[in-house]
């Protein structure tokens, strides 16, 4: 008979030793962990506020006449035009064009988009190295025109994906709403290679789209008309040991998927290999190097001081689409909790102002089990989940101004929407969960108050309460299954200080940062 502790300990030690002795390399695990962490950081920094805005827009109105519903059209409505330009410098960036790009037809490759996790922005890079930091559109995507008159959604964090499409390569024929994007795959792991100019009669664009199926699941089936008479095309998967799996493509056939059909462990490349009538070969290849994810090609200018929000001049410049003459400054760095404009009112190790307690229409309570989100939809918040009910004031305002003025620090998000063709009402919302002990703030929850993405919860229950207020009741969930477990001590506080602390929610609403009205409330058990 053995003691259970010893049994567990023995199992652990022998297992760990065996894993080590087996020579298991954790490089792959490190690579995908790093990749997903980077995406998650970018997601949190760059998309959380826009998702909140998009969700709130969805709450308030289904017809988005003012801010536009996307729709896939090429025309730029005024709202989209205003948010797609940004004057702030990103520093030095690589051009980031496909390998051997000089063999591509003129104007064929128009650029790449990716999320710069350091700054939290989606950026677009054109082949000449011009970098544009793309701000989110009011409906949560990142609309951008590479200069060919097509408006494309570079990223759609508003879609219900765990890891939304973050990066993509674009060619002249990838139209708005029908983009060639790497979706959940890490685009950095793939390098496009066109070894030589396409021979006469080879339709590069068609073959590019066919091979895209392998990476994205989307594209075009093989068209024999994409190669000259007498030519055949094989799909090839090449591995690091020199082995190749090949298969002939037939009319309309799809290339195998790296998600389902291809063992990526030792994969080196996938390719379409065209054998011309004279026996010569030409291929279009995507190289796969997941263990060598390069550093981000942009090196943003480090923040030179404490958080600042754009000046009226900068905001006006952004709204006007002016890209010349604006100052180069990184005002959008993601800050630590309680380091944004709210720090004028709330500080770690200081009491939240007594006169602001319950000064707004905000309540917070712990909840467990199934809670009503939107009748009849419920969500299991586990035990020790936190529900925050908010009735927030709104102001008639321009959505771009709202977004531009929202500090990109923890707890801040723009909220607003419109009814049909009616005016846009919105606000800047600040919400943060903290721990209060002996009257002072001693910790901050590690999860944002609004975490739509993690929980898959939409805020569909809210609606207009009056023409100038919105009731977000039931739409805000701070965390599920253990909000206390996410608390982190701040300042000189320690974990011990959190043990007996009370939870409180800090909040603020306003048409702009200087006009914010703050308050706080204790979380009811």
């Amino acid at each position, binding site marked *: 008979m*053995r003691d*259970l502790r010893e049994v567990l300990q023995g199992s*652990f030690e022998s*297992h760990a030793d065996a*894993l080590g002795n087996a020579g298991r390399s*954790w490089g792959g695990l*490190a690579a995908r*962990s790093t990749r997903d962490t980077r995406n998650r950081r970018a997601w949190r920094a760059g998309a959380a506020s826009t998702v909140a805005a998009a969700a709130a827009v969805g709450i308030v109105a289904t017809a988005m006449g003012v801010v536009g519903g996307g729709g896939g059209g090429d025309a730029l409505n005024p709202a989209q035009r205003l948010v797609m330009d940004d004057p702030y410098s990103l520093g030095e960036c690589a051009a980031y064009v496909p390998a051997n790009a000089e063999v591509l037809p003129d104007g064929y490759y128009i650029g790449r988009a990716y999320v710069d996790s350091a700054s939290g922005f989606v950026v677009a890079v054109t082949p000449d190295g011009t970098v544009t930091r793309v701000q989110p559109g009011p409906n949560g995507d990142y609309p951008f025109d590479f200069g060919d008159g097509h408006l494309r959604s570079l990223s759609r964090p508003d879609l219900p994906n765990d890891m939304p499409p973050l990066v993509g390569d674009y060619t002249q024929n990838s139209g708005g709403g029908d983009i060639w994007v790497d979706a959940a795959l890490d685009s950095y792991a793939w390098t496009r290679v066109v070894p030589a100019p396409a021979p006469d009669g080879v339709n590069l664009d068609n073959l590019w789209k066919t091979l895209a199926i392998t990476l994205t699941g989307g594209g075009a089936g093989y068209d024999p008309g994409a190669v000259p008479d007498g030519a055949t095309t094989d799909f090839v998967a090449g591995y690091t040991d020199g082995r190749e799996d090949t298969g002939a493509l037939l009319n309309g056939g799809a290339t195998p998927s790296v998600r389902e059909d291809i063992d990526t462990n030792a994969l080196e490349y996938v390719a379409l290999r065209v054998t011309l009538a004279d026996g010569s070969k030409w291929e279009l290849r995507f190289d796969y190097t997941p263990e060598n994810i390069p550093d981000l090609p942009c090196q943003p200018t480090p923040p030179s001081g404490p958080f600042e929000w754009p000046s009226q001049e900068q905001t006006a410049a952004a709204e006007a689409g002016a890209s010349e003459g604006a100052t180069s400054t990184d005002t959008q760095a993601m800050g630590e909790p309680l380091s944004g404009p709210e720090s004028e009112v709330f500080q770690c190790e200081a009491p939240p102002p007594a006169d602001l307690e319950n000064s707004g229409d905000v309540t917070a309570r712990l909840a467990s089990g199934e809670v009503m989100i939107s009748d009849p939809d419920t969500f299991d918040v586990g035990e020790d989940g936190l529900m925050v009910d908010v009735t927030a004031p709104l102001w008639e305002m321009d959505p771009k101004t709202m977004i531009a003025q929202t500090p990109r620090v923890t707890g801040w998000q723009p909220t607003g929407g419109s009814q049909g063709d009616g005016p846009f009402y919105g606000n800047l919302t600040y919400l943060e969960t903290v721990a209060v002990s002996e009257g002072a703030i001693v910790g901050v929850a590690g999860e944002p108050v609004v975490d739509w993405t993690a929980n898959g919860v939409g805020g569909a229950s809210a609606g207009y309460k009056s023409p100038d207020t919105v009731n977000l009741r039931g739409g805000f969930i701070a965390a599920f299954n253990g*909000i206390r*477990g996410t608390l982190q001590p701040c300042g000189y506080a320690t974990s011990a200080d959190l043990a007996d602390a009370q939870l409180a929610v800090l909040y603020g609403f306003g048409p702009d940062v200087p006009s914010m009205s703050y308050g706080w409330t204790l979380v009811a058990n």
Partner: protein
Amino acid sequence: MARWQMLVEQLLAERGSRLVAYAALLVGRDGDAEDLVHDAVVKVFSRPRPLCTVDEAEAYVRSAMPSIVIDKARSTASKRRALTRAFERAEHTPDIDAGLDVRAALRELSPREQVCIVLRFFDDMTVPQVAARLGLAEGTVKRYLSDARAKLLPLLDVTAWEEDQEITVVVATRRGDRHA
């Protein structure tokens, strides 16, 4: 390369085996354990934290795992993640034999029971600590431990461990000693 990224790589290079072995106690299978380590690393490092050393990082990542296991049982999002990453590793990561009998027995438990057992008897946490970590009531934790014991006893050649009441006494005594 960002500092957090270097720390992730160093963490997994130096402690990858121990993290996976710990995760395997929580989920039972090596492949699932790697996914749990991945999820915990992403959760810990996706927010700025004052982590400087591998020891600190390992502690953070380990402490993040239990709640992830319980959340996974509930979340449809985690199922989508599992599908997404299934292509990223060998289809069937084989279980290593060492200690497999124990992990196989643990797999007979529900996720919450398994997590409670590991926190209580591997991490040596008290029932109140387990409850606080998982956001569960102490009574709920005791019930999980009791149910788990009933399932494990026929499977593992182990002695019965101390009762919860005895645990409480031990904790009280330690506190008394500390303040004496």
